[in-house]
């Protein structure tokens, strides 16, 4: 019984603090201070959580290597780069502590070099794949299959033609139309989604705080 009740109660109490301190002030601003302290703590907790992930990565990849299952060589690369970059990173972090200068200097070269030469190019290239993917997705999706799809297509075409300098020479009003669609119908739809979603999120939050919704705790639904 406790297994279920304690987490639900903790969740409720932890949720009460930001709500109360958002609306009310207290003597000596104690409420706000308590709220800030809890938030500080949770930032630290999320730091500890990263290690959970690291353990999982080691578990999965070590098993892959020992079973020689498909892609086991890549698992070695993965773990090796994790260990190397992680070690550089830890050296970097601890070098900031007084008396720990011997582990390295802050902003050490290995860490920065891997960041600049490997991490950053990989990251931005992965991001840049989107330029290709938007092209193929647009080609496939913008078809006048029915009225809704037709509206999607029409709005997209106004925007796309409004960017083409040759088309704009003939139809000079298109950029203005684009702005109108973006600031008119588009803004309206977004606003509707945002208001609806905010109310939906609020209702979900109440369900969570009251312990009605608890699949995230691995607990049975309902009461």
């Amino acid at each position, binding site marked *: 019984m406790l297994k279920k009740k304690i987490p639900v109660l903790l969740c409720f109490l932890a949720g009460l603090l930001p709500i109360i301190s958002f609306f009310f002030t207290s003597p000596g601003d104690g409420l706000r201070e308590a709220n800030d302290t809890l938030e500080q703590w949770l930032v630290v907790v999320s730091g500890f959580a990263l290690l959970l992930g690291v353990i999982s990565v080691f578990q999965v990849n070590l098993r892959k290597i020992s079973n020689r299952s498909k892609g086991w060589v890549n698992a070695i690369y993965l773990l090796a780069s994790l260990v190397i970059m992680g070690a550089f990173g830890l050296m970097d972090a601890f070098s900031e502590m007084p008396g720990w200068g011997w582990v390295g200097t802050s902003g050490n070269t290995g860490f920065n070099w891997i960041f600049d030469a490997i991490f950053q190019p990989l990251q931005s290239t992965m991001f840049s794949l989107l330029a*290709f993917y938007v*092209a193929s997705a647009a080609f496939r999706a913008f078809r006048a299959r029915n009225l809704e799809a037709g509206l999607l297509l029409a709005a997209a075409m106004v925007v796309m033609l409004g960017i083409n300098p040759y088309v704009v020479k003939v139809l000079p009003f298109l950029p203005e139309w684009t702005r109108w669609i973006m600031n008119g119908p*588009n803004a309206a739809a977004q606003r509707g989604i945002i208001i609806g979603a905010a109310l939906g999120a609020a209702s979900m939050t109440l369900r969570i705080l009251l312990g009605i919704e608890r699949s995230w705790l691995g607990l049975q639904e309902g009461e």
Partner: protein
Amino acid sequence: MNFMDWITNLDRRWLYLLVGVFAIVPLIFPLGMPVNVSPAVQSLYDHVEGMNPGEIIMVSMDYGPSTGPENDPMACALIRHALSRDLRIVMLALYPIGGVNEGIQELQRCVGDLDPPNGVLESTKFPGKIYGKDFVYLGYKDGGLATMRQMNENIHEVFPSDYWQTPVTEYELSNEVQGYDDVNFAFSVATGIIGEWWANTVNAQFGLPVAVGCTAVSAPKYFAYYNAGQMFALLGGLKGAAEYERLVLDNYPQAKADTEEQVFYAAKGWDVQSVVYSIITIFIILGNVAYLLERRRTRMQL
């Protein structure tokens, strides 16, 4: 297999190939896609043209590397325009991730390598223009909106030293600029929200004229401020950058020579953008034509 079947079952990699090719080609062979200068851009150019030599422009670097292709050319064109007209520039950065590096990178791209702490103060690209006298870079300060408010009271308190940690009072130009009153206008090269703050706070509350160069994605939002008169000029995305760059290049040969030396500048980006958009547009149209023909054919068979 006829063309329509090919289009209907198009392997997406053909599209990837076209996009890739046309992202490279304009960098080597500029296509010179037409640029129609819009009033929002013209007004920045006209404003700078109307300034008297010695007047000061504040340039705020409010973006990071990921939007560099859009924002870099805007900053460059303005710096070159200003220096060509003997105006003075105070640069600073308010964007938390990477703004400070963008600032030093674009400044050096325009004026040449600098090393003020070791006495390398004179611009190689604009001979006679001196760091600290004609242009100065104050570096980055966090705090966003709060910082902008504080700058109204005293810039020296917000930026006690420049990018190279030299006290601002040691340079003639930075010593002179103490508040928004000392500059003619502010140009925010922005991604995201910081440019909006320039409009709705610095312009609306402190009355400093503001111009913004923003990314294409945030342009519709910014045009609302432009239309409301909270900024006197707006460069939107690569298109706006290319328009302004064109105006500057057409009138200042030095700026033209310097710009065309670069691997990348706004006109090339505009080429890529308009060509890629055209390709996607054409394929969407072909796809729809094929789809409609196909539908008609199946209907006739029924």
